[in-house]
């Protein structure tokens, strides 16, 4: 369950959210729609802990986000940004996934390599996992950015336009992954996610309203 209590947020020059009061369950995918610039990415960044300066309260499983420790954010939430290249820190997909698994430690835990191989195979990335990320095509990078979702975890997924730039097969794989997952999808492309029967929200005039 995620709950907003009198939640507001403004950038210095622009108000984005004003007095949002809303709660919704996170048992199945949630789709948050909104026009360009309405605040979808900002909301994703707030929930992921990247923007802490909001007013009001946001509660995740009855605990205030403001009371989350840094480790709790990383343990409970995984946020994949809209621009694929903004998600990587390493030079190759293989290295990047290793950093997801064990940081910069050189010690690899049992099963981590197998888990990476499985992930790359599922996303059809095996052949390009050792190539430099900036030499990959836009679509390959986007698919690569989704790889950490497949690592064993029990996190809530925050996905900003996850299908943008993906081909039909990759969208199909994405939808399979999203089925019954605790995911919040920030996207305008409702038709893509219809098969998931998501809980639909929309950002309208600085409020988040529930559609279904």
């Amino acid at each position, binding site marked *: 369950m995620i709950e907003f209590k009198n939640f507001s947020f403004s950038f*210095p020059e622009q108000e984005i959210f004003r007095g949002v009061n809303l709660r919704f369950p996170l048992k199945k995918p949630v789709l948050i729609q909104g026009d360009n610039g309405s605040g979808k990415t900002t909301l994703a960044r707030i929930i992921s802990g*990247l923007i802490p300066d909001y007013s009001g309260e946001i509660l995740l499983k009855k605990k205030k986000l403001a009371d989350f420790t840094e480790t709790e*954010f*990383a343990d409970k939430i995984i946020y994949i940004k809209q621009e694929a290249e903004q*998600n990587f*820190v390493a030079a190759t997909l293989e290295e990047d996934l290793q950093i997801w698994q064990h*940081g*910069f430690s050189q010690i690899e835990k049992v099963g981590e390599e197998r888990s990476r191989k499985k992930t790359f195979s599922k996303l059809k990335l095996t052949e390009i996992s050792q190539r430099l*990320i900036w030499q990959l095509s836009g679509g390959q990078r986007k698919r690569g950015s989704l790889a950490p979702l497949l690592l064993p975890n029990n996190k809530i997924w925050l996905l900003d336009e996850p299908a943008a730039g993906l081909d039909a097969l990759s969208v199909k794989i994405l939808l399979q992954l999203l089925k019954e997952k605790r995911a919040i999808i920030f996207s305008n492309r409702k038709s893509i996610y219809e098969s998931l029967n998501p809980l639909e929200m929309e950002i309208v005039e600085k409020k988040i309203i529930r559609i279904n």
Partner: protein
Amino acid sequence: MKINLRTILIIIILLTTISLLFQQVLVQLYLVLISLGLILLSSHRKKNMKSLQQRFQGLIKLFVILFLMQIIFRNEGNVYMEWGIVKITDQGVNYGLISTLRITLIILLAALLFQRPFYDYLLAFHSWHFPYEISFLIASVINFIPTYRSQFLTIKENLYLRGIYFRKLTLFQRFRTVSQLIFPVLSRALLQVKDRAIALELRGFRLYKNRTFIYEHKLAVWDWLIQLFCLLLLVFIVKGQIL
């Protein structure tokens, strides 16, 4: 008060020249104070001041290390204290303070420069009758630093999302982490330059000799006065030092 970039560049040339020519702590301190005053005068955004403050907070350890190194390795002059082979001398303390103040000055002047948009540099160099290509080249180099900064910030953000906190790492761990991250950061920054070069070529960058600009930066009276004062002072100082 909006000071013209050309005026700021002349002030920076003056301040750095003075900093190089004079080895006195008090002079360096004055230069730092003048730069700070300039930043306060020309910065309209609280955000800039906050990021400058954060930068200094992050560099405090470096300042202390630099200061201590100078004190330990410079043994000339009158001895204040002595423990075995370690001597603290007046010159060591003096150089320690001077180097720390110089680095502070460099950071402040850099902050002063990076507050300005890329386009202002083009206008400044163009009004000094630099060829447009050269102006663009210099402006691009200056613009490179914010590009790196933004790349590093994105990476820092991504590490945070993965539960890796830069400020919780020890100095050694930070060096190791940065050494692993530097290659992707450099490569991505260079790719941005490549993209910009392609975009320029597509617009026929060197095709036209005469150009129009979106806006102009005219010099105000105080700009003329400051520039004149700085140039006279520069000539006076350089002449005094050389002759």
